[in-house]
């Protein structure tokens, strides 16, 4: 009974837990609930992935209404993988949240934080599981609205303008997606994704379909912060509470990439998206710009949270570059990087939360002398940074290997070279941190800094450890990414 309803429970549990967390009113109780729910969703997504990998896609009819009339929840190799990413990050972040939230957010607002987190989790999981195009929009709004709350809870007053900026940009993006879905509904008369895909196949000449395609391309690009539609991201990540930054940086753009993959590969089909429409060349150009613009701007940042935010923009560029090839290896690279980047960026933002907890800030000046005073946190940052650079034996290397291989397969030599040069820029911005932490003495009269508590260190090291482990043992990630890529390329191409 429970096993059959897992796809629905995945979304329903956090959704119902959210108001409960608000009613609990006490921060510590809300936290326990949020942690519990995160663990449950992790267990669910893990069993879903196992089920999908062994016995193929799972279809679940919401309320017993058969698809394509009712809302279908459909779990296949790719979204089961994304569900796992989101729930792993959610769980690890919640492990660290108690300490960091207690330090950064006022007591009376803490349960609000956990409520917003649970809503956001429900939204992200919902976007990922649903097989209904309009449902995607609904959950997108749930996750976006709760994200605005999470960002605005930051203690810096600039968090409010950051949230507002994100609200405007995010709403534009969501509206574009809604218009796109509406146009598709208009031409096909269905909202079920698979049904839609089947009916779209003969309609490639339709202007309406092409317009829907364009709206969806812009809308999803905004949500996943593809250069030059990334403007909302740096402020949102910088001024949000540390835990919100860690959770969002590791999950929300990933889910947006997933939505984009769903629309362009499953619904429109790879032929229409990349042969009829010039998506490949546009994404490739923007992705390369993102890699270089993001990394270059990151080099000049003084606030490390903002630095990592710009690095995220560059990393989204790597994912989109893999997508733009529209080949098996390219998609494997993109999906691998989805997972790998979640691990390393999540770990890095958690380490930053520790720095913020111990030193009271995250500017480069706060890092001076941390090599001695916070050795474990700094070591985590160095390892996470090496992974961002793409040093072998880290996950970053695995992603880069597949990405360059994908470029070479296509004969895109300059692209392969640019990818590698881009990763050298990461050396520069990571080494800024290393030099500050290990070579500079703290300012005169600065407070004595102590190593962060275990409650922050442990979750940080779980993710950093994962970003090393999955750099050496790539069995799980590569096989999941390979079957996901095959699923994406398989549906849509064949009738």
């Amino acid at each position, binding site marked *: 009974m429970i096993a059959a309803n897992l796809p629905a429970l995945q979304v329903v549990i956090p959704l119902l837990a959210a108001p409960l967390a608000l009613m609990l009113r006490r921060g510590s109780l809300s936290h326990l609930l949020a942690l519990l729910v995160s663990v449950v969703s992790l267990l669910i997504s893990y069993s879903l992935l196992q089920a999908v990998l062994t016995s193929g896609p799972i279809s679940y009819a919401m309320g017993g209404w058969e698809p394509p009339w009712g809302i279908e929840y459909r779990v296949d190799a790719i979204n089961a993988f994304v569900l796992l990413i989101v729930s792993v990050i959610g769980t690890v972040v919640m492990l660290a949240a108690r300490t960091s939230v207690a330090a950064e957010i006022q007591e009376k607002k803490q349960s609000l934080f956990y409520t917003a987190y649970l809503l956001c989790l429900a939204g992200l999981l919902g976007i990922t599981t649903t097989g209904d195009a309009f449902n995607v929009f609904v959950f997108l709004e749930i996750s976006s609205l709760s994200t605005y709350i999470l960002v605005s809870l930051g203690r810096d007053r600039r968090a409010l303008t950051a949230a507002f900026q994100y609200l405007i940009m995010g709403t534009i993006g969501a509206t574009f997606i809604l218009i796109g879905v509406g146009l598709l509904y208009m031409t096909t008369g269905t909202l079920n994704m698979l049904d839609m895909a089947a009916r779209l196949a003969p309609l490639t000449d339709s202007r309406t379909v092409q317009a829907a395609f364009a709206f969806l391309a812009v809308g999803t690009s905004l949500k996943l912060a593809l250069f030059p539609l990334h403007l909302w991201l740096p402020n949102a990540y910088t001024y949000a509470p540390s835990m919100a930054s860690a959770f969002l940086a590791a999950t929300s753009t990933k889910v947006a990439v997933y939505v984009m993959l769903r629309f362009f590969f499953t619904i429109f089909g790879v032929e229409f998206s990349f042969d009829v429409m010039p998506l490949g060349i546009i994404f490739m150009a923007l992705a390369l710009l993102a890699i270089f613009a993001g990394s270059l701007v990151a080099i000049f940042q003084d606030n490390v949270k903002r630095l990592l935010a710009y690095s995220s923009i560059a990393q989204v560029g790597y994912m989109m570059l893999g997508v733009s090839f529209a080949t098996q290896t390219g998609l494997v690279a993109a999906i691998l990087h989805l997972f790998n980047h979640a691990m390393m960026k999540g770990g890095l933002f958690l380490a930053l939360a520790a720095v913020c907890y111990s030193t009271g800030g995250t500017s480069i000046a706060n890092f001076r002398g941390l090599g001695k005073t916070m050795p474990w946190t700094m070591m985590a940052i160095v390892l996470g940074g090496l992974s961002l*650079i793409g040093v072998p034996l880290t996950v970053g290397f*695995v992603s880069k290997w597949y990405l*360059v*291989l994908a470029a*070479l397969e296509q004969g895109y030599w300059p692209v*392969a070279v640019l990818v590698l*040069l881009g990763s*050298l820029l990461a*050396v520069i911005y990571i080494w800024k941190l290393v030099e500050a932490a*290990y070579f500079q003495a703290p300012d005169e009269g600065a407070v004595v800094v102590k190593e962060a508590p275990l409650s922050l260190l442990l979750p940080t090291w779980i993710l950093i450890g994962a970003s090393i482990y999955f750099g050496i043992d790539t069995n799980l990630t590569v096989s999941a990414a390979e079957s996901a890529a095959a699923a994406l390329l398989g549906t849509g191409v064949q009738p």
Partner: protein
Amino acid sequence: MIASEMLMAPEILMPVILVLPVIAAILIRVTGNNPNLRETVTLITSVIVFLLLIPLAAEVLSGGRPTLILAEPFPGMPLQLTLEPLGMIFALIAGFLWPITSIYAIGYMRGHHEENQTRFFMLFALAISVTLGVAFSGNLFTLFVFYELLTLSTYPLVTHAGTEAARKAGRVYLGILIGTSVAFLLLALIWTWFLAGTLDFIPGGILEGTASPAMLSVLLLLFFFGVGKAALMPFHRWLPAAMVAPTPVSALLHAVAVVKAGVFTLLKVSLYIFGPELILGLPVTEFLSYLVAASILLASLVAMTKNNLKARLAYSTISQLGYITLGALLGVTGILGGSLHIVMHAFGKITLFFAAGAILVAAHKTQISQLDGLGRRMPVTFAAFTLGALSIIGLPPTGGMWSKWYLLQATLETHQLVLLATLLISSLLNIAYLLPIPLRAFFAKGNTDQTAGIQEAPLLCLIAISITSVMCVALFFFPQFWYELASMAVR
């Protein structure tokens, strides 16, 4: 009994040898408050590591090629240890010189009152572990992994002093080594994988017939410039920059381990990825070898202009590395000569660096112009320096003669008279920039006020210098062991 036999199996010995220095590093950290105990850990581990290498060498000489797969991060591309003759040569050199350098380092670090000695010895042990990993690498991917780890693990040793100058040098070090390895070497690796579908080391190479000669030429250039540790001009600047490190680091890491890891990689690529025959047939080879020749001569010329002793030795190393790089381009005899030169240059250059450090500790002199008359105060140091210099130049009775012999023979076999001339001119230049140093020290009339009170270096330093300089001579009379290993590799 059975357990001990299992532990001594060659496949198991390799990871044991790699792990021992790591354990030592942890122990060094733990015993940091008791310097004598800490140094005992270093010395004992280094001796054990060397002793464990001996049964491995016997195994390799009897034709064994022990192999062990550690993990398989990519399908068909495992992290794999395989011991073959070339790697054995490199491992033996590093393993033999580690205990000697440790003896030297103890005298040096204490005599020079360096700070953070615990961190120094800890990182040194880690760097040795990674160096041996390079030597044991069973395929190009594993080699690349250890190559990158070597850069990262030696970075904190270069910046040991923590000063602004050390930080700047660290940037150059990391910038060039990581930059070339990611931009060129990694690209070359993925390209090779794309062409051949494997990165295994196969005698005769894996690239024959996979792409047009023009494409393979580009690939060859990517490899030769991608291995920044070989210090081929114009990517050589990191080596003089690294001289800011304490002298034992310059001696073992930047005259032996790190730079030899670079040329070792090139020899492996030449022997097992391209195949010597394929390289000889590529249109770019001649151009590339002239480039290497230019690097050899230019570095020698720059060395002559350096008054700082360590800087002069660094440029001399760049020039000497060119010999080995050249060997990698000159077919099997060239690879034979290059492999031997790894050995000969290691002993010669480490002697010179030991001497430079001894002079710094005993007399606080860094400039060559300050050395007048010091020879009479420090006779052992300067006698050793002379032997080391003779070996670098390649004159009997030192081992350096043999490797140069085979390199010259390789230029004749391939009818490269320009390269032959390059090697001969370079030898003359070596004489010109190395021999004046001991001549000055012994015969020039120094200012007796300035040299008064200067005594020989600490005893531990002298022991180390004596061993390495005697080895330079011994290698002239007994090169057979190394010759046998090297010829096994190219056979």
